[in-house]
């Protein structure tokens, strides 16, 4: 766990704490943006036909039925009844066409906007948003992950300061962040350590010591901020609304972290890879997703945070319209669905369409580039921001990627 959360560079722990690596320029950009993002990632590939692009009466339709939402003309799955009351917040993109249709490569592509076949250390969307939206004064990490999210590309070329901070599936802090000693004892230990280190530093004023000291400071800042991760008391009141599941708790924690100032929080909901028994599996998963996602949107709205918090619902790909001989649906990237909501997004709309059986995009095809560019623009990030790995330039989205203006508020 330690290795995955605090990446070591030159022997120094360098997780993504805001101020320490931010330039004044970036800090100024962040102040302009003031946005954040919560990404709900359906690991394994959620079925578009069984959620947001239903085909009732068609051979590919399956047993689920559509229901009305609070937006005339938009129907979604009957097993998302709570979310149906928030359709006015949703922009449903029914015309995704993506190229990487297996778990590892799909997860990578839908987290970085680039195919893994390029063999380049691309940055995850969370790292990009952390770089441009994080509050440089925050004690909290700026890029947080919970649950299984299907990608471990991390910060890539953006550098280790934007590496994700990984929580448990249910949003709880890893064990190392919860010292057993009481605060008073920790303070005494810190003072003792400080006196030893000051004496040592006077004798050896070298750069490595400064790095070591910075890492230590970051750890102390986490200890100071860790109460933001402790939602146990509030969770007892919220769990009936969110559903008493790890994903439900993860969504509640995401709201709390966003409120505390974390720029990007990804919450994974795994178990969608339904090559067999697609329908009972999806029905069970939607019973977890529906209360959690709808409560997240409601709480963001109630706290006045929704206008500045982009909520993304996505997977590595969709699932085939075809229902195989095992009652399952397989991997599918030709015409599937993602959903955006909240900050920067014009809700209450469906963008694009698949054909009548769902095999092909019928209108307004959306690729990875347009999808990422739209997210970045909604958050006030230049989707063509240029970075370098050594002397090699790399952009936030590939050449030709353009945001979808119709989706933007």
């Amino acid at each position, binding site marked *: 766990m330690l290795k995955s959360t605090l990446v070591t560079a030159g022997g120094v722990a360098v997780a993504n704490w805001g101020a320490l690596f931010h330039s004044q320029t970036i800090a100024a950009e962040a102040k302009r943006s003031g946005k954040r993002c919560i990404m709900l990632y359906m690991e*394994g590939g959620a079925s578009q036909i069984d959620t947001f692009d239903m085909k009732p009466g068609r*051979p*590919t339709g399956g*047993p689920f*039925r559509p229901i009305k939402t609070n937006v005339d003309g938009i129907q979604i799955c009957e097993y998302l009844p709570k979310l149906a009351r928030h359709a006015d917040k949703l922009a449903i993109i029914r015309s995704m066409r993506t190229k990487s249709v297996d778990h590892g490569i799909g997860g990578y592509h839908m987290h970085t906007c680039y195919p893994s076949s390029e063999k380049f250390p691309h940055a995850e969307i969370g790292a990009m948003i952390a770089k441009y939206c994080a509050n440089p004064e925050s004690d909290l990490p700026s890029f947080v992950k919970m649950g299984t999210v299907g990608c471990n590309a991390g910060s890539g070329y953006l550098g280790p300061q934007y590496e994700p901070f990984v929580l*448990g*599936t*249910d949003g709880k802090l890893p064990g190392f962040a919860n010292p057993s000693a009481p605060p008073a004892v920790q303070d005494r230990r810190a003072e003792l350590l400080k006196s030893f280190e000051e004496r040592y530093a006077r004798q050896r004023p070298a750069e490595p010591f400064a790095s070591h000291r910075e890492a230590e400071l970051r750890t102390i800042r986490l200890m100071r901020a860790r109460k933001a991760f402790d939602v146990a008391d509030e969770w007892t009141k919220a769990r009936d609304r969110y559903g008493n*599941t*790890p994903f439900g*708790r993860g969504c509640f924690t995401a709201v709390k972290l966003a409120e505390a100032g974390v720029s990007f929080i990804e919450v994974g909901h*795994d*178990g*969608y*890879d*339904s*090559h*067999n*028994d697609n329908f*009972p*599996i999806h*029905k*069970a*998963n939607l019973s977890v997703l529906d209360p959690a996602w709808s409560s997240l949107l409601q709480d963001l709205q109630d706290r006045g945070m929704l206008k500045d918090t982009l909520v993304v619902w996505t997977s590595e790909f969709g699932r*085939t*319209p*075809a*229902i195989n*001989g*095992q*009652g399952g649906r397989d991997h599918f990237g*030709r015409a599937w669905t993602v959903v955006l909501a909240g900050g920067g997004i014009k809700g209450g709309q469906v963008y694009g369409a698949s054909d009548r*059986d769902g*095999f092909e995009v019928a209108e307004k095809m959306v690729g990875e580039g347009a999808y990422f560019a739209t997210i970045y623009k909604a958050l006030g990030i230049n989707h063509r921001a240029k970075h370098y790995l050594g002397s090699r330039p790399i952009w936030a989205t590939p050449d030709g990627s353009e945001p979808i203006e119709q989706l933007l508020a």
Partner: protein
Amino acid sequence: MNDFANAKVLHTLPWNSAYITSLAFIGNDRVAASSKNGEILIWNLAVPAGKTPDPVRRLLGHTNEINAILVTPDGRTLISVSSDRTVKYWDATSAQGEPGSVVLNDGFLPKGVTEKVDKVPPLPPPIEVKLIVQKPLRVLTNHTEWVLGLAQTPDGKTLVTGDDQGVIIVWDLPAGKERRRWQATQWIASLGISPDGRTVAASQHIPFIRFKDGMEIYVPQFHLWDVESGQSKLDLRKDLGKDFPREAMSAVVYSPDGKWLAAAHGKLGTEKTQGKILLLDPATGKKIRDLAGHPVGTNDLAFHPDGKHLFSCGRDQMIKIWNLDDGKLVRDFGKFADRGVWISAISISPDGRLLAAADRAGQVLIYSLTT
């Protein structure tokens, strides 16, 4: 003892429009099959030698997948349960209805739902068959979600159904009246009722693919319930210990003589399972022996009327016959037409002379079991 060495395929009945979910004999010479698209077809098997039976009746009324069917012991009523949340009673014997037709070999399963139509091998031509279309006699709407479990007592007096909200309902079968209901904690995946009507065995689960920390509450359950009180009499998950799977039981069946309770390990999603079949003491729930079953999951079970054999089918495309006394495999029938799809359901005629088996490619095979 019958070793079924001479068992052979008598008829191959095409359907094809959706995969077949359940089978039931009506008497000894008719068979009914239910489908995922909510239809039931009935074939009269008494045809001259060399002729393939055509379906003679089509039962229409369900609006979603039919999950199970059975025929009452007197052969007069067919009962179906569906994801349309209803239980339906049908006249199993009447030839009265509206004239209609059905298209067999319509090509739907091989090519109707695939984006790779050009890779589908040549298909047999479609066949339109004239038949009688019938509607249900009675529709019971006491369940509010998918009705998945269905069983009856051998005297035909008691019916039990279970849904994915964990509701188990015991019915006065002839009257179609609810006698008792209780609430279990998870989906009812499969259930059976003891011949005396006093105990319901129900396997429960929440069909998540993966289990992780914090999800212990979703570990599948398997209880014996007292019908009179609606209370759990035995928690078989505790009793079975390491023999209890992470998946639900795909089939739970009492033998008609009440001597055995058989439960089959199913499979969900991509989880691994051994597909074993457990033979339990119906009174104590203790395991008597386990059968090797079907790798990657057993789908359905049926006791032979001779009281000595259990038939099973599974995701390995096989039908297997087991000796109840020693648990040994008597024989299997080889891969079922080798179509690459599961065998989803089996049923044995009341006289034990015929076996019907159906696959997820929409085909029913009728086997002769006579020596």
